[in-house]
Structure formats: structure tokens, C-alpha cells
């Protein structure tokens, strides 16, 4: 199996932020992403998806090392997301070459 090793960066955050964070990510060079609706609980309480302001999204980004660092630095440096509930984690994935 011919694969390329990449980093899967997963961001779980408030749905309210979707537009703004996707905008920032695209500025940083992201050109592919997947978004999944989620509920959850964390330091900032329960997100039960009962009503509009109360839902999470899980953003999945497959990126190379350089872009991962760039996003990492952006998220940790900017104060913008300091006050939002957000969880970010990385794992390794092997992407199949198709085309």
C-alpha cells in the first residue's frame, strides 16, 4: 500500500466559531477539512446540542508537519481563542495515494 504519512489535527470547539476558525485556517494554508457535529463535556461545561448556541463541531485536518506547526503556533499565540472552549489533538495517519 502506497501511503504518505501525514498529521491528523482534530479541533473540537463551539459551533459558533465555525465561520471564524475556518476563515483563519484557510488563511494559514489549509485547503481541505472535514467537519462533524458533536456534543460533549469539558472544562467549560456540557454542550448538549439541545439548542443553537450549545453545540460543538469536530474539525478534522489532514496536514503535513509544517502546516501543523503553523496552525499550532497560531492557535497558541493568538489570544483570540483563549476564552473559547477548544480541544486540539494530533495523531499520525497514512493517506492513500489515489490520483
Amino acid at each position: 500500500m502506497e501511503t504518505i504519512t501525514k498529521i491528523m489535527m482534530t479541533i473540537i470547539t463551539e459551533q459558533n466559531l465555525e465561520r471564524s476558525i475556518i476563515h483563519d485556517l484557510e488563511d494559514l494554508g489549509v485547503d481541505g477539512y472535514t467537519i462533524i457535529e458533536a456534543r460533549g463535556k469539558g472544562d467549560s461545561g456540557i454542550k448538549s446540542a439541545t439548542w443553537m448556541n450549545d453545540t460543538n463541531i469536530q474539525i478534522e485536518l489532514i496536514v503535513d508537519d509544517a502546516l501543523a506547526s503553523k496552525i499550532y503556533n497560531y492557535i497558541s499565540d493568538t489570544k483570540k481563542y483563549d476564552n473559547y472552549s477548544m480541544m486540539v489533538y494530533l495523531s499520525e495517519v497514512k493517506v492513500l495515494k489515489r490520483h
Partner: protein
Amino acid sequence: MTLDPVVMFFIAGFIISLMRVDFKLPSAIYEFLSIMLLITIGLKGGIELSKQHVGDLIGDVGIVLLMGVFIPLLAYPILYLLGQFKRVDAASIAAHYGSVSVGTYAVGVAFLESHHVSYESHMPLYLVVLEIPAIVVGIVLAKGISKETNWAEMAQESFLAKSIVLLFVGLFIGWAAGEKIHLSLDAFFFAPFKGILALFLLEMGVVAASQVGLLKKYGLFLLGFGIVFPVIASCVGLVFADLMGLSLGGSLLLMILAASASYIAVPAAVRIALPEANPGLSLTASLGITFPFNVIVGVPLYYKIAEMYLGA
């Protein structure tokens, strides 16, 4: 005093949530009901606007805007000085109370219809108008008139918030199409209005009850504020209504607009504009305390006050 059936739905939702029944409307349905309420309220107002000279209302719109600026300015010192909240939290809560709750407004409309009391039917215009100034005042209170604020983004998030836009779409189409719209859209928008409101309130009862648990965390002052301030604000609303010469029904609706606190448009806008504000505080107050209070006690109470004041 007999409760309006729609209010019973609210109470039922509240109770079943406290009994830990695992009920919630699918969020798609909740959104659908909200959209229906907003468009219908807009349409109703628009149809009435089509019958009058819009120009005649400009003065009154100005007065209502003034009220929208005044109420958060009244709430802020109470929260900051008496309540000892952080500046940004006081400002955020003030913004919520300066703005309005469409659900509470709809309960007021249902109340007037049950009591066969008429009202100035362009009131939805004021509903739209009041959504916005409080947000601006809240931000200025929190930050001063700082250059840092991204006013463009703020405007996008508040003026173009979904709820405001839907009200406005309804208002505009109602105004442009006029009375004849009733014929074709009655069965979907107008006739089921109260039923839609009932189901919406069932869900809101569930949501409001789930906020009650947070009260312990935020303490008694917030509880008191969430009950007392709406009553004060309703009196402010009454004075403004008097100024504008509104009828008994119209006065009640303006009192409700004054007394109610936003739990949809403002939380979203403030979350973007004032991220350091604790969203739990303002939501618990507006949704967990003031909304139930207004729906169950406030609306009939304000009506009594208005009757006495207007000597009706």
C-alpha cells in the same frame, strides 16, 4: 387567573426536565419552530405596516431606539456596583437585558389574543429595532470606544444575525405583499402560530430547567436580578409607551420587550465581541430565570400594571 395553554406547555417542559425525563426536541425541529415564529411575527408586522405611512413611524422608532440604549445603561451599574460582577460580565448581562426575547413577545401576543385586547400591529418593527442597540451599548460599556473592536465583524454577527434577518425578511415580504398574503400563507404560517409556540415553549421549558442547576453556582444576586430587573424594565417600557401614546395592548407588548432578555441573538454576538465574558452567567439569568418568570408571572403582572397606570 387561568394560565394560557401555551404557558402550560412551558411549565410541562420545565417539570419533565426536572424529573429527568430524557426528552428534547431534535435540534432541527427546534430551529424549524424558531424560524416559523420569527417569519410569522415578521409577516404579521409587515402586513400592518403596509396599511400605514411608514414615514409616520420614524419618530416612534427613534423613541424605541432610545429605550434600547437606556435599559442596558440602567442594568449595568446595578450589576457592576451592586452585583460586584466583573466589568465585562456586567456589560454582557446588560446587553442581554437591553435586547429582547422573541419567545416572550409571542407569549404576550397570545395573551392579548386570549383576552381579546387589540394592539398596534406594527409592534414587530420595534422587536427588530430593539435587538441591536443593546449589543452596541454592551460592547462600549465593556471596552470603551476602543479601536480594537472589530466593528465590522460585530455588525455582521449582530445586524445580520439569523433571527434578526428572518424577522426582517418576514416584515419586508409582509409589507410588500400586504393583506393578500394571508390568503395563501395562512394555513402554514398564521393559523398554526399558537400551536407552534406551544411546542416551542415545551422545549424552552426543558432548556430553561437545565439552566436552573447553574443558579447555585452563580448565587442569589443573579436570581434576584433576573426577577426584579424585568419588573423595573417593564415600568421603563410603560413610561416610553405612554410617551408614544400606545394603547393598552401596545403598552403591554412594549413592556414585555423592555422586560425580556435575549437568549439567542445577543449570546451569539457577545460571544464573538466579548469572548472574556462568561456566557454561563448571562444565559442563566436570561434563560433560566427571567424567561420563565416573564412567561408565567411577568406577562399577566405587567398587564395589571398597565391597566392601573392607564386607568383602563
